[in-house]
């Protein structure tokens, strides 16, 4: 049988899915063991027990100076910045995307501007943000917004434009005004697509969050990683990176579930 027609069974598929994870873990542990055999004080590839001790210290032990659990405070601060930033981006892209996508005058007015603005590298204007907004929360949240909103706006404009024209004609023949069409035809069909757009923006949002925290912050996951880098504390950095990855993954799963249960019609409409 041809290669493209062979399919793994259910168990086979599961095994295949976890194989790369196991391979990576085995590879790491072997390399770590080799280095520690040569030099018991190796810091580059910490052993599992070293990382467990670090996690215990960061996550389950009160910090001596502040009395906080550092990993918890870091996570909460980072998530707050991320969620506020993304919420603002979603709000902006929702309003602008639908209005510009529907109204030809706004399209002519804004599309070239948005296209140009989205080419500005967000990290390049980070210094400007720090100068204008100071090094507080505003600058970090603004960076996330500037980094993600233009993409989401453009994506949503395109989604509105690619709606079958027949639908809007039909709505008009049923007597819908522009406002009613926005409310009853366009918005409900754009909400699940906005979730897709948000899922794609999660990756960039984390990049901007960690960049901003690395440069100026008093707490946060990115701040911690860049702080302990000075001591080559790989035993802290690696668990933090895994934790960040896990959080990002959970966000994605959550959004997918929301999409599936809040918009049951969407999966069928997408394949049509």
């Amino acid at each position, binding site marked *: 049988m041809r290669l493209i027609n062979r399919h793994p069974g259910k168990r086979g598929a599961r095994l295949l899915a976890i194989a790369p994870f196991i391979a990576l873990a085995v590879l790491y542990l072997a390399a770590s063991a080799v280095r520690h055999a040569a030099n018991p004080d190796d810091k580059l590839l910490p052993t599992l027990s070293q990382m467990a001790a670090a996690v215990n210290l960061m996550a389950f032990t009160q910090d001596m100076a502040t009395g906080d659990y550092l990993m918890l405070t870091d996570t909460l601060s980072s998530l707050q910045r991320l969620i506020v930033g993304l919420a603002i981006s979603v709000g902006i892209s929702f309003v602008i995307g639908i209005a510009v996508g529907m109204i030809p005058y706004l399209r002519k007015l804004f599309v070239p501007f948005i296209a140009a603005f989205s080419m500005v590298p967000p990290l390049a204007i980070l210094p400007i943000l720090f100068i204008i907004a100071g090094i507080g929360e505003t600058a970090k949240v603004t960076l996330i917004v500037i980094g993600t909103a233009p993409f989401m706006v453009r994506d949503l404009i395109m989604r509105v434009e690619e709606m079958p024209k027949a639908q809007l004609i*039909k709505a008009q023949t*049923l007597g819908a005004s522009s406002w009613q069409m926005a*409310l*009853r035809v366009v918005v409900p069909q754009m909400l699940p697509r906005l979730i897709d757009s948000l899922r794609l923006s999660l990756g960039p949002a984390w990049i901007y969050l960690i960049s901003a925290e690395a440069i100026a912050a008093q707490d946060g996951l990115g701040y911690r990683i860049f702080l302990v880098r000075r001591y080559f504390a790989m035993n802290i950095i690696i668990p933090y990176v895994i934790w960040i990855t896990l959080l990002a993954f959970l966000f994605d799963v959550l959004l997918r579930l929301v999409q599936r249960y809040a918009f049951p*019609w*969407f999966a069928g409409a997408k394949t*049509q």
Partner: protein
Amino acid sequence: MSTIEVKDVWQIYDDRVVLEKLNLNIEEGSFVSIVGPSGCGKTTLLRMLMSEEFCTRGSILFDGTPLPGEPTPERGVVFQRYSVFPHLTVLDNVLLPMELKTSRFLGKLFGPRRYNAKEDARAMLDHVGLRHAADFYPTQLSGGMQQRLALAQALMAKPRVLLLDEPFSALDPGTRADIHVLTKRLWEETKMTIVMVTHDISEAFRLGTRVIVLERPMPDDPAKGARITHDIPVRPRMKKKGAA
């Protein structure tokens, strides 16, 4: 008196003449089928009747006044695809025209008014044989059911003219025969005018009171647009009631 008068209408895209000096009067209550080979401009003509496209020269009058520049509820439409809204259930699709009419700001009804509107919508679904499917989404329906839903939805807005753009072309023959009977019944009950574009000649004759054939005299010559080559009266309205 004619409902729709097409007067000396030309449609020219760049250098290609699509319709050439078209004249056509459509009488109130008639069922006009427009047939012709693909690319002859029959859909262009229909688009002009729904104000989705505008003629290069000439004029189209509706009750003696020029057609408005955008689609209006007097002229309902059913397309071959994308005629119903995928995010609304069957019942909500039929409810929508009433909601748009009575709730100008939200486009949505609540409480007892919604309850009453739902009763009307269910009666309409009964009429087109879709009551059992009220809670489904359109993508869960077969092609024939989707088009029946599209007809029901269009009728809820009580249009005076219904424009059909190859509405049954994608359906298999059995389903098509059923929906022909339904379309004919709805037309007889509502007394509205129907203009249907199709490439199926037998369908055109089975349903229409009048069949218009649109053809380009020289298909390869872009300077010669389509014109009406045949205008065949089939039967007067209401004469053979129930015939399909």
